[in-house]
């Protein structure tokens, strides 16, 4: 077993700079939840399968449970807390609410960030493209129909 030293880690989360002191074996997920208290990002499987820990890294959805905090310094991290516009929900969040695309809400932060990244890159995705984009985000209660409908409503609006 090696001797592990704590290091200073600087993270840019939702356009704010945070300094934490942590061991290098801390995942981004742990840093966000335990150090920064940004508990919107969820842990479910903890092994890259389910997508509930999804955050955006320089705009692209990644698994924060398989990412070391120390390795993403200098990158732009976006969590679900960073999406709202002032006191208002982001249109993607609103669409999920309006289309009843949320039940327990555990998959929602990851699902919404994935949808947000898709729409940024491709404002008018087809249903196939939507289904492909969220295919790595597993929802165990709402089912996918409402989620796809919510994203589609934005695709149609070109938001």
């Amino acid at each position: 077993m090696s001797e592990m030293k704590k290091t200073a880690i600087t993270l840019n989360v939702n356009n704010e700079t945070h300094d934490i002191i942590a061991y290098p074996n801390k995942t981004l997920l742990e840093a966000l939840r335990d150090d920064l208290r940004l508990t919107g990002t969820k842990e479910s499987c903890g092994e890259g399968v389910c997508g509930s820990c999804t955050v955006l890294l320089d705009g692209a959805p990644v698994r924060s449970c398989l990412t070391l905090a120390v390795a993403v310094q200098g990158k732009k991290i976006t969590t679900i807390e960073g999406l709202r516009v002032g006191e208002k929900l982001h249109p993607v969040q609103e669409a999920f609410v309006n289309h009843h695309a949320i039940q327990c809400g555990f998959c929602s932060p990851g699902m919404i960030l994935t949808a947000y990244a898709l729409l940024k890159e491709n404002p008018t995705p087809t249903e196939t493209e939507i289904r492909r984009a969220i295919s790595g985000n597993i929802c165990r209660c709402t089912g996918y129909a409402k989620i796809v409908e919510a994203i589609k409503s934005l695709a149609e609006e070109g938001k």
Partner: protein
Amino acid sequence: MRLPPFQFLEPTNVEEALSMMNARKETLKIMAGGTDLLNRMRFRLIEPAFVMNIGKLRDVDGIDIGENETVIGTNTKLKDIARSPLINNKFRAIAEAAFEAASPAVTNMATIGGNILQDTRCLYYNQSGMVLNGLERCHKRGGTICLAVKGGKRCFSVCQSDMAPALIAFDAKCVLQKKGSTRTVALTELFTGNGVTPFAIGADELLTKIIIPQPKNGVGSAYRKLRLRGSVDYPLASAAAFVSVTKDGEVNACRVVLGSAGASPRVIDGRSCETHLESIAQKAYDSAEGIDNLQMPGAYRRKMAGVLAKRAIKAAMDRLKEGM
């Protein structure tokens, strides 16, 4: 589950990385995307003293398409390979393998080098300590038994890489660098076929590039995969097909490479595919190891190796006819 402790290293160029590896040998593990490595560390299957992130290395990322060969840097993300128009055009099976691997968010992180060098897997090995504590030590955990095959004298763990079969179908080579020397070997030579130590790569060697020779004349290729859930899962059986024709349109090479059929990809060579479709399917069936150590029964996976071989060849032939 927390990760075990380690010291973190982050070289910014290849030379620096090679020096770090040379000084630390087996105590150091390379992290590219980390999607395979961190899971194995979390399960305490490996506990390296040093983890070296190669994500910041320059010159080992990106696709360079030349006249005689295409070079893909080890750090190139599967997402970029899947969406590259040129890879889709010229090396369709490789693009399909990247598209079908894991899930979109995982392919945003996963690299081609890490995909090739991901360790072999087995239901009796890739488990948390809680499960493994209740099991006898198998070959891969330093024991002398196999839990998947009663009386098994060797390890039957499986190479579940999607990229390796597709790259081997195109006769790809890879460049391995260590402090003071560089060697280029056929990708097939990187695999030992031994489930305990599946790769013929030194602890101080860094995979830097994958080289795909430009095939002569017309080529068709395809990759077909069996998985539990179409959205996220590893291959349980797979086949990459490569078919090439002479200037006169006569088939002069027909190669099928099986994935998830053993500890290394299995190559099946034929000359004329259309007439010998059934015989290639039979060879695929014979060559695949159908062991009950992944999520579907071994006998079914083995049958599917034959079916997927046929499907891949058919798709490759169709593409050839379409002039792709």
